Structures are given as C-alpha cells and as structure tokens.
C-alpha cells in the first residue's frame, strides 16, 4: 500500500484532499496533548508562545521520554492514547487553534467530525500500542512545555517526525470509518 506523504506545512488544501481510508506518512513538527492539556484549554488556559498549533498537528500521546547522558531528551516509546476522552473538548481546540490534524487512536465522535468538516481538519489514526515503531519516526524531541504542571506523560512534547504512519479515519468531508465499521459490525452480529 503506497502511503500519501503528508509534509509540513499542513495547509487546508492538503488536508481537504485526504479521504477516509487513505494511508499517510507525516513529516514535520507535531505537538502532543492529552487529557490534562485539553481540560486546561477548555477552561481557558493559555498555551506557551512556543506551542504554535496553527496549521499544526496535535498528537494524543503520553510518551516515555528519558534524558540521555548529554542532557538531551530521548523519546523511547510514543504510541497514541485513546482519543474519545477528548471528545468534549476537541472541537473547540480545533476551532480556536486552527489545528489541521489530530493523531490518536480509537476515533472520535460527532462533535469532532463536525469541527473537522467546518474548519478543515482530519483525524489520523496511528496504530495503538506500536510505541516503538512510532518512536523511531521521531527524529528529534525538540521541546517540552508545561512539564511541571502536568507531569511527563501529560506534558506538551514537541517532536520532529519523519514518515510517521497513520490512517485517515475521519476526514474533512463528514466521513468516519469508525461509524461505518460500527454499523457494519452491529449488522453482522444480528445475522
């Protein structure tokens, strides 16, 4: 299967061209943000200036990061966490920060799907549990923000990624692979 190369800058045009079922490989800067970050933003918290999410990609991930002998960060495991917990907040974060892509696992609900359609964003499903394959795509762990407030797994990490693999499971045209598979599986169970 040939993957579509999704390279920074992640413009609205590139994102609108993506369709459910497309395999992509992402290259560029991405930021992590999970439960604590979403709740914080929802409650009106402000991001540090260095975290620029405009035309950016937010990754639902709490990595394992260690400091090497030279004091540099090294991300040793970095798979996606379950995204649906951010469903109450994600639409707002997409709208307010101009995010073009959300990477996670398990898919998200109707509010996020609607925000993807309205603002030009996609949901990119990474393989849950594949923390090593995905960590190998991180060329550099270039920053960490809000570490003191949230602790390591919940902090905002800045990653430079190369050919990070994901599947588009919710696109900017209102389509969701998750809705389709759910409906099909319920039908199959009733047979």
């Amino acid at each position, binding site marked *: *299967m040939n993957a579509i190369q999704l390279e920074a800058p992640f413009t609205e045009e590139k994102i609108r061209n993506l369709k459910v*079922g497309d*395999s992509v490989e992402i290259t560029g800067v991405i930021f992590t943000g999970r439960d604590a970050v979403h709740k914080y933003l929802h409650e009106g918290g402000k991001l540090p200036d260095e975290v620029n999410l405009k035309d950016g990609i937010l990754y639902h*991930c*709490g*990595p*394992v990061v*260690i400091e090497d002998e030279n004091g540099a960060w090294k991300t*040793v*495991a*970095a*798979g996606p*966490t*379950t995204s*649906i917990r951010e469903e109450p907040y994600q639409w707002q974060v997409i709208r307010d920060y101009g995010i073009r892509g959300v990477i996670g*696992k*398990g*898919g998200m609900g109707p509010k996020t799907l609607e925000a993807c359609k309205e603002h030009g964003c996609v949901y990119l*499903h990474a*393989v*849950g*549990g*594949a*923390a*090593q*394959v995905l*960590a*190998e795509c991180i060329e550099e762990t270039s920053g960490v923000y809000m570490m003191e407030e949230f*602790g*390591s*797994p*919940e902090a905002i990490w800045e990653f430079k990624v190369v050919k990070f*693999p994901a*599947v588009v*499971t919710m696109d900017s045209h209102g389509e969701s*692979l*998750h809705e389709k*598979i*759910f409906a*099909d*599986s*319920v039908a*199959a*169970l009733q047979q």
Partner: protein
Amino acid sequence: MVELIRRTSAELPDDVHRAILSSLENERKGEIAEATLKIIDKNIAIAKNKSQPICQDTGSVLFYVDCPVGMDQIAFEEVAKGAVIEATKKGYLRQNSVDTLTGVNDGTNVGRGAPAFHFHQTRSNEIQVRLVLKGGGCENVGAQYALPNTKLKANRDLEGCKKVILDAVIQAQGKGCGPGVLGICIGGDRATGYEYSKHQLLRKLDDTNPVPELAAMEKEIMDKANTLGIGPMGFGGKTTLLGVKIGCANRVPASYFVSISYMCWAYRRHGAVLSPEGSIESWLY
C-alpha cells in the same frame, strides 16, 4: 525482579506473538488490517531488540504470586516496590502512577494500591511470580453486566452470557487496541468477578479450558467475534480477537454477573519460578 519487569515490558510472550503472526497470515493482502498487523509485528521486534517498552502505556503493574506457606509477603512487597522504582528509572516503565486526590505523579509508580499484589498460598515450596502490565486503553473498555439485561435480551444462562460478551466486543471496537484477548468471569460478586476475569489472562492463549462447556463457549465467541469485521484497531478485517478465556465462580441467587477484562494485543505477561533466595530459576511463559 527488575529483569521480570524489563522482560514483561519489552518482550511479548511467545504464545501471543504466534497468535499475531497467524492472524497476519490470515488477513487479506494489501488491506489496512494487514498493514496494521505488520506494524505491530515490527514493533514487537524493535521493542525486544532495544529492550524498550512495547507500548508507552506500561499500564497497571499487577503481581500475581503463588507462595509457600510461611513466605514473608511484606518483605516480598518491599522488594517488588523497589524493583518497580528501579525499572521506572531505567525507562522500562513510564512514570505512570497518579495520586487520585492531588493529581500528583511523583514518578515512582509506587503509591496507594500501586503496584497491586495478589498473593495465593500453595503447599508447594516454589515461589511463582507472574506479572501483567495492563494498559489503560484496554482497561477502560472492560465491562461488567448484571443479568438479566433487557436491552440485550440476555437471560441468566450461557446464551445470555454470550450476548453480553459479544456486546462488549462491539462496544470495545477501536478503543482497546485490538486484536484483543478477553478474560471473563461468569459469576462471583462485583469485585471477585473482575478479579477472576483478570486471572484468566494468566492462561496461555493456546491452552484448552478443562471445563468442556467453557471451552466450547470460548471457541464460539472467538469464531463469532472474528466474523464481525471489526479487525485490528477497528480498521476492518478478519482479526478482532486473538483469544477468549472464560472462568466461572459461584454466585449468590440474587446476582448473576458477567465480568469482562479486555487485554490489548500488547499483552504483556511474564512469570518466573523463584528460588527461596529470590533468583530466577525458570521462566513460565
């Protein structure tokens, strides 16, 4: 003990790896399901080679200890807690334990109820320690049903049990990092039901349930679940489950619980037989 934690975090047990490889063979070539299982297989190899966590969510740390009469359990807990702290420093475990009241993560993985210990006395002189690292994603999709369940038309019989178990598979899709494994307890109370369901996850995937009715039910649920088209990660495909393990416990007449623990493909379970001095004599999986 640190070696047991390292091995559990970085190396998938052979029985689970074999099940993943056979499901990879079985998926249609060129589909997302196949590509996903290939990434999973590659991930298993990298984690083992680099001695790094298979999954960044190194999970709840669950110790199951079969111990001889008279073994000092308090001393065992102290040693194991020390090993957890050490394994966390080495990056085998993520700083993964949060004080629920204050929200503080002190980075040690040791605190109230963490790690969890389940001791079981035996007449044998051997100490057997099993360790399961159970990620939060799959723990969150566990489910407990009280029968009868009107919505699912599930009565207090084995047919009713099957209905609620398959409902749990439908509800878990995509969220629990499939293909997964179900550990199930029929009966018990709300607490023991879940506890016994997790005990089922200590069984090897290729074993056979000694109770014929339960063995038949395991096979039936596995076969049915793999026709639902949910597939790895819920992307669609033939492999929804890698295994189903069912146990049962007596219940009181008023209760009929079915408790389901879902385990993700990153099924981190290892175990060792220890000498009385605490060194590893042999591996269990």
